[in-house]
């Protein structure tokens, strides 16, 4: 493995082992959308897996601690109360069917082939956002508060994420994305960056000031700060609240942490 860990990463990895009873195996993988991604070990897996890109920079240390944050949250919950969001073809079909008119309205800007090509990206992206951003808020706050040595890398990482998110405010994206998806994505991004920006002392929301997502974004941020119970259970309830707030409650379901499809955890 060619990752150069900086403090406090080795200690955090040790804590993962102590809490979960399993270590982390690092696996190099090139087709990742970030420098690193985590696969949490289920009962039948000997270790958690962190996939990482060969070409990476120091930010990977922040990403690893962030992923460990997810592990800590879920493994502190009693085993029979752990839930994970999931989707399948039927759920996806029902979700996209509900916005069929919005999708068809895009045929002025996009060909049907183009729409068919990006439809999965829209859906998967939005599900990833709604099911990750709430716990990510708590994890980033924890990193900022607990690990001052990581703050500069954290900020770099958040800025990278922020620049990808504000791309959702451009006219091109506005013209080529179904309104339900665009609205949900931007409102959630606003709430995420508002809360975290205030926490880490950055103004991440100035790009949103003249947009129609401001009021709903503020409302979502307010609900989040008021109601968040800092635990895995709290994460899941907040995910449900966010989904309801942006009208995508039916876009995913919940199942037990161990109820994963056959083949989960195969590294091949």
């Amino acid at each position: 493995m060619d990752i150069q860990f900086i403090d406090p990463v080795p200690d955090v990895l040790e804590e993962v082992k102590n809490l979960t009873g399993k270590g982390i195996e690092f696996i190099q993988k090139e087709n990742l959308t970030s420098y690193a991604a985590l696969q949490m070990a289920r009962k039948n897996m000997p270790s958690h897996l962190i996939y990482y890109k060969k070409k990476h920079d120091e930010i990977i240390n922040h990403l690893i601690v962030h992923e460990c944050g997810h592990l800590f949250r879920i493994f502190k919950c009693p085993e029979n109360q752990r839930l994970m969001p999931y989707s399948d073809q039927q759920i996806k079909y029902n979700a996209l069917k509900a916005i069929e008119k919005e999708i068809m309205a895009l045929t002025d800007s996009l060909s049907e082939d183009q729409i068919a090509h990006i439809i999965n990206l829209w859906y998967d992206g939005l599900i990833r956002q709604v099911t990750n951003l709430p716990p990510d808020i708590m994890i980033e706050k924890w990193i900022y508060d607990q690990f001052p040595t990581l703050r500069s890398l954290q900020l770099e990482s958040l800025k990278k994420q922020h620049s990808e998110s504000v791309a959702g405010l451009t006219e091109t994206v506005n013209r080529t994305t179904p309104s339900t998806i665009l609205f949900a994505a931007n409102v959630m991004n606003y709430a995420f960056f508002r809360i975290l920006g205030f926490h880490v002392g950055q103004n991440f929301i100035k790009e949103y000031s003249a947009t129609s997502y401001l009021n709903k974004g503020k409302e979502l941020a307010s609900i989040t700060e008021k109601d968040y119970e800092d635990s895995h259970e709290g994460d899941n309830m907040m995910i449900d609240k966010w989904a309801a707030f942006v009208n995508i409650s039916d876009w995913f379901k919940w199942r037990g942490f161990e109820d994963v499809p056959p083949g989960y955890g195969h590294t091949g």
Partner: protein
Amino acid sequence: MKDINYALMLIRANKFDGAKDLLKELIQKDPGNQDILYNLGMCYTELDKPEKAVETLSECIRYYPHYANAHVALGFAYARLANDEKAKDHFLRALEIEPSNPYALRNLGGLYGKENDYEKAIQCLEKSFSINSDDQQTAYGLGYSYLHSGKTDQADQYFKVAISLDESTKIAGMAKDFRREIAEITLKEKGFRPDAMFYCLAALQFFQDKTTEQVRQVTFEIGARGRQGLDINNPDKKYTLDSMDGSFSGVQLVSYMYVGFEMIDPEQDIGLDLSEEYKQALGLFSKERPHGYTIH
């Protein structure tokens, strides 16, 4: 802070054991809470602990004697303990409180069905279904009750509805089996079927130069299609197969399937008796073989 909403999330994800543990914790802090007691009782029933369910739900209705759903849940727990008398008392009590409670009606209908009183069962279940038409159990119960009342057409309709509500469930599988039984009853109620005999003959000719694998493909595809339901009383209704060109009526397909199984696995019980028709077709097949003809 623990939250009942999380217990409800666990219940929706069928994680009853986790929900039960959480609800037990919550009831310690808030004894007598209606929602906690009710859901805890439901979890015990789902976890196959009806005695604990009766205990918890009885406590719930001691606090809230007019809570109709708790009476239904308690009745259901008693039914699990085979105490049908007490189960019925609670379903009836729920209906006194809330005359249109669809779950009380459904469960009471189920009990009448168990007592072979299908007329009353159908009354209750029809009323329940008119209020809650997305309920698969009620649709299945209606199919079952109509079938045992000899009303196969209505039974078939409700089994079809039950399947369409969620094809992935065990109930849908049972409804499919009943539809196959109904198909057999309907097929044979007119006695010997000359049309089936001619289709068996056509099948014998069709299969004669096919490999075992080809026969198997056609036969199994019809079998799978049959699980979805084939209309064998309407010759105008046509079906197509991937493994065989053309369009076919329901009775034509079951005849091909029967012949196919006779060729590849005669011991297989396909729940459909065309033995007489097949026997006659075999007789004709040996006579007609040099010329051959096909019926579509």
